[in-house]
């Protein structure tokens, strides 16, 4: 027992004396510029990592790319979301990355900070994409990839119950939304006025649309700005739904919104486009006519959260030209529209929304409209950690009714001590 302990201590001490200490300069912090991509058809082998349903369906889509570029062979590896983050960090550490990967928008800061991603070449036109979505590819002023697909949050509401409550045109501002929730409860007989997430992972995604709509910002350069008056006003507004009894502050863990939306006990909620098929599945035939979506209400402006996934090329790729060509191809409007048909992933390219399949659906078109003003959180490597602290304070504010300004001060000091990871 004693000998290994001494050996361990000696080794640890040796490491401390010899190998330790950070290098003085940090090369990944400086803005980087990309080299150009050669023209001509793509050739060689490419591997792509993609998560979830995208990983399963992407092989069918890239067949078109292989047909257009006879010299290229694309291998898609499907990775489960739950294992993806670990797999990426391991691959980056071991320098065994794929050529291309689907990357969650909140991972961009981390991977770019590790120096793993290749900057986007200038040949890719950033104005073709939704500005909020393009923002998720930028880390420290440099873009690393393109937005592949996007999602944003809207207010879902039951049209039949709204009619009962005497509301025929959806409200457009904060007061209107709250009045509608009240009317749903008082006149339409719903148990709750609206479903809002009372804290827990990702509740900031419901709070921030209100804060952004009020002109608040999460950061100013590399300073966190949680304790602004605009943020405070937005969180107080969010809190008032719980203190006024319009929203359920203690739903059972793991409870989903679809059953209560369908039975009318929660006639409104805020969520993303995937809920359309989810509520229609629970609601059965004809339910699609009983609900609609409306843009996030306006204070100064209407704003929502933009999420989705990006496509990035890794620096360790041996086939950089072909890799960027595939990424560029996946960002073409017609390919994006076709991909929507295969996966129902919403296009990140604005012109793809003119495709009849997207333009003819009124609910989808509302998502398309909201995407124009949707905002992404900063692409700091520490964002998820800060977001968890924010979620915890949101939970305190909604569930215990504690003071909003105290909570925001707590988040601000925690966020400042965590830093921005740069």
């Amino acid at each position: 027992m004693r000998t290994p302990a001494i050996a361990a201590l000696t080794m640890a001490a040796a490491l401390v004396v010899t190998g330790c200490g950070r290098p003085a300069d940090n090369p990944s912090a400086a803005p980087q510029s990309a080299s150009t991509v050669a023209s001509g058809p793509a050739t060689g082998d490419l591997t792509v990592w993609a998560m979830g349903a995208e990983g399963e369906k992407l092989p069918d889509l890239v067949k078109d790319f292989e047909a257009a570029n006879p010299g290229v062979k694309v291998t898609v590896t499907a990775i489960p979301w739950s294992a993806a983050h670990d797999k990426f960090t391991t691959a980056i550490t071991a320098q065994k990355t794929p050529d291309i990967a689907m990357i969650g928008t909140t991972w961009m800061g981390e991977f770019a900070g590790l120096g793993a991603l290749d900057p986007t070449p200038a040949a890719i036109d950033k104005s073709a994409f939704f500005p909020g979505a393009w923002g998720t590819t930028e880390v420290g002023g440099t873009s690393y990839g393109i937005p592949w697909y996007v999602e944003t949050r809207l207010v879902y509401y039951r049209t039949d119950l709204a009619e009962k409550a005497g509301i025929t045109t959806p409200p457009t501002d904060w007061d209107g939304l709250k009045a509608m929730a009240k009317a749903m409860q008082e006149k339409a007989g719903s148990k709750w006025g609206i479903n809002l997430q009372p804290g827990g992972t990702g509740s900031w995604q419901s709070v921030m649309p209100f804060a952004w709509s009020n002109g608040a910002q999460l950061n100013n350069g590399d300073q966190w700005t949680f304790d602004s008056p605009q943020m405070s006003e937005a969180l107080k507004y969010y809190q008032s739904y719980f203190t006024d009894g319009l929203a359920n502050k203690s739903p059972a863990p793991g409870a989903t919104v679809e059953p209560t939306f369908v039975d009318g006990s929660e006639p409104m909620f805020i969520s993303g486009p995937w809920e359309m098929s989810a509520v229609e599945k629970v609601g059965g035939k004809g339910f699609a006519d009983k609900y609609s979506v409306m843009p996030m209400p306006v204070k100064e402006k209407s704003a929502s959260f933009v999420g989705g996934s990006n496509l990035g090329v890794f620096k360790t790729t041996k086939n950089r030209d072909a890799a960027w060509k595939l990424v560029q191809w996946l960002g073409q409007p017609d390919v994006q529209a076709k991909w929507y048909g295969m996966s129902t992933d919403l296009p990140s390219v604005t012109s793809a929304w003119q495709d009849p399949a997207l333009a003819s659906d009124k609910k989808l078109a509302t998502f398309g409209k909201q995407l124009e003003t949707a905002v992404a959180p900063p692409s700091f490597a520490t964002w998820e950690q800060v977001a968890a602290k924010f979620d915890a304070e949101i939970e305190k504010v909604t569930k215990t009714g504690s003071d909003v300004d105290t909570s925001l001060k707590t988040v601000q000091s925690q966020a400042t001590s965590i830093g921005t990871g740069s």
Partner: protein
Amino acid sequence: MSAPTLAATVQLPPAASSPKLPRKRGSHPGEGRAAWILAIPFTLLFLAFTVWPVIQSLFMSFTDTKQKDLRTPFAVNFTGLQNYGRALSDPVFVKAAANTAYFVVVGVPLTLGVALLAAVALDKGITRFRAVYRLGFYTPVITSIVAVAVVWRFLLQPDSGLVNTVLSWVGIAGPNWLGDVQWSMPSLILMATWRNFGTGMIIFLAGLQAVPASLHEAAAIDGASGWQRFWHITFPLLRPTLLFVSVTTAIGYLQFFEEPFVMTQGGPLNSTISLSMYTYNQFGYGNYGLAAAMSYLIFIVIAVVTALQFRLLRENT
């Protein structure tokens, strides 16, 4: 006949001890070398996959290692005990420690009690379908926690769950089990007890069946009641079994992770977050130095608790 004299008559069977033979050294010149060569594969694997990770993680806990340092794990700054200080001054870590203590202090005795009760019932009371009951009680142990979590979330639903429906039949308005700060931890303790007592039960059952029937017969002839026989014959003989089960259960419970991870994500309001889960979150955020320090703090607590158990439950010989 009084109880103390009864206990005094009980003699433990002598432990099978192997007499130590003096080892012969250097009887054959090649023997030592052969032993070393044969031991090398194991030694190398042990050094590479057990000793090295331990050293590395210990080293990490004294540095400011973050996710982005993975490629250059030694180009980090040595920060001394700063990570340990940060962990101990983190209110969520302290809260997680309190939650873990709550879980262990209530959960371990409860699990041991239920396991012993079930084992005694199976040993003495239930003679029919014994194998069926044994299998039934053990099934939760081998069932996937994910499936268990889904079922328990249904059972504990505040409005439509089975538990609250049954409670409402007798006029009790059941709480919002997992959604209420007061009830979330008791719910998890209950679930963990249900899930884990099967292991203890099987081991206790083996221990009970190893108690010689002749001792019971002798005590019964001397007029000892069933309770006296349990308390003065069965229980002392079960002591080593009890030590084993309580140590393994306590170590498992001190590291409890799955229950809050799949049931509550540590909520509501951090009322069910455990030390392991909070440490896991820190690893997830890439704060490797801090998370390693937290891991070693948990390790120290486990070592201390286990040492205490050995002291309290050791054989009084």
